[in-house]
C-alpha cells in the first residue's frame, strides 16, 4: 500500500474521520496537562520571576507557526508535482491555523518583552522576519480567496508559499545568521537541554506536544471541510447544467 492512496479524497475522508476524535482528545489532554502544570505547578525563574510562565504558550506557538508553514510548503510542492487536490486543500486549510499561531506568538512575545527587555517590539532580525511571516500568511490566505479557478489558485499560492519559506527559515535561524540581535538564541535543541531546567522543560514538552496535536486536529478538520465544500460546488454546478 502506498502513502499516495490517501491522496484519494474518499480514502482521506474515511481515515481522517476515524483519526480526528483521537487526535482532538489527545490535544485537549496534552494542553490541559502541559499548560496547567506550567502555569500553576512550576517554580519561579531565577531572573524573570513568574513572567517565565509565558514560555508555555510563546515557545510552542512560535514553533508551530513556523512548522505550519513548512507543512504548507511540503503539501504545496506535492500539489505542484503530483497534482493531488487533497494536498493543495490541506495547505489551504493549514494557513489560517498557522496565521493564528503566529499572531499568538507575536502577542505573547510583546507581553513578555515589555517587562523583561523594556520594550513591546524591537526591529530585531528574528522579530522582524517573524512579522513578515505573519504578513505572508495573510497574503497567502488572501490569494486563495482572490482567484476564482481552484487549480490556478493552488498553483499561485504554492509559489507564494515557496517564496515565504525564506522568512520561515529566517525567523527560526536569524539568531545564527546575525548574532547582534535582541532576541536570545534557542533554548531548546535536540542534542542538549541544559539551557532549560527540568522543572520547566517537562511541562514545556507536554504543551509543545499539545500544540502539535491541536494543529494536526484543526488541519484535518479544516481539510475535511474544504473537501466537502468542493464536492458541494461540483454538485451545484452539475445541477445547474441539468
Amino acid at each position, binding site marked *: 500500500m502506498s502513502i499516495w492512496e490517501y491522496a484519494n479524497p474518499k480514502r482521506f475522508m474515511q481515515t481522517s474521520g476515524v483519526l480526528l476524535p483521537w487526535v482532538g482528545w489527545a490535544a485537549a489532554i496534552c494542553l490541559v496537562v502541559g499548560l496547567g502544570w506550567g502555569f500553576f505547578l512550576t517554580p519561579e525563574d531565577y531572573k524573570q520571576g513568574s513572567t517565565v510562565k509565558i514560555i508555555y504558550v510563546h515557545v510552542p506557538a512560535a514553533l508551530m507557526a513556523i512548522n505550519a508553514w513548512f507543512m504548507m510548503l511540503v503539501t504545496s510542492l506535492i500539489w505542484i508535482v503530483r497534482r493531488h487536490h487533497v494536498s493543495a486543500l490541506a495547505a489551504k486549510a493549514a494557513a489560517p491555523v498557522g496565521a493564528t499561531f503566529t499572531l499568538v506568538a507575536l502577542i505573547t512575545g510583546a507581553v513578555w518583552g515589555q517587562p*523583561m527587555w523594556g520594550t513591546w517590539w*524591537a526591529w530585531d532580525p528574528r522579530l522582524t522576519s517573524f512579522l513578515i511571516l505573519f504578513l505572508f500568511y495573510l497574503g497567502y490566505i488572501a490569494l486563495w480567496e482572490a482567484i476564482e479557478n481552484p487549480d490556478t489558485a493552488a498553483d499561485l499560492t504554492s509559489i507564494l508559499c515557496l517564496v515565504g519559506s525564506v522568512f520561515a527559515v529566517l525567523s527560526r535561524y536569524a539568531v545564527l545568521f546575525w548574532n*547582534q540581535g535582541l532576541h536570545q538564541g534557542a533554548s531548546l535543541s535536540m542534542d542538549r537541554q541544559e539551557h532549560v531546567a527540568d522543572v520547566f522543560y517537562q511541562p514545556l514538552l507536554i504543551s509543545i506536544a499539545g500544540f502539535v496535536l491541536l494543529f494536526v486536529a484543526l488541519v484535518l478538520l479544516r481539510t475535511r471541510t474544504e473537501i466537502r465544500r468542493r464536492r458541494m460546488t461540483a454538485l451545484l454546478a452539475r445541477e445547474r447544467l441539468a
Partner: protein
Amino acid sequence: MSLMSLKKRRRVQIIAIAAVALVLSSAIIGYALRDGINYFRSPTQVVEAPPAPSETFRIGGLVEEGSLVRDQGETVKFRVTDGNEAVTVQYTGVLPDLFGEGQGVVALGRYANGVFEATEILAKHDENYMPKEVVDALKEQGIYVDPNGQANGS
C-alpha cells in the same frame, strides 16, 4: 518514459532551480544588509570606527562587573563590554527588570567624547531558565557558575 513523467520531472527541476535561486538571493541580500539587519553594534565596532556624534545608533554587550554607578536621581553610569573593548554609557530614566551587572544590555543613543549618551535601555536576556530556589541553593554552597561564563559565586 511516458509523457506524464517527463512533465513531472520538468516540474521538479523547476522547483529545484527556484529553491536554489531563492536561497542564493536571500543569502546575498542578507550578507549585503548585515549592518542594517544587526540590531546593535558591539563596543569593539564602536571603538574601532567611532560614529559621528550626531549619529543615533544602538550599542550592545554585557554590563561590566563593578562598573555600575548610580548618580543622584535616576541617572546611572556603567560600562558596556564585549570582552574586548568597553564603552562608558550614561543614562537617565527607568531601567528594565533584568538590568544589572553581568547582564546583557542594548542601549540607544549617541557616542560623543568617549561617552555613550543613552536615551533608551533594553535588557537582553540569555536562553537559560532555572528555578530561583535551585540558584539560591547553588549560590549558598558557593558553586554557582553563571551560564555566561564568568564565575559568580557569592
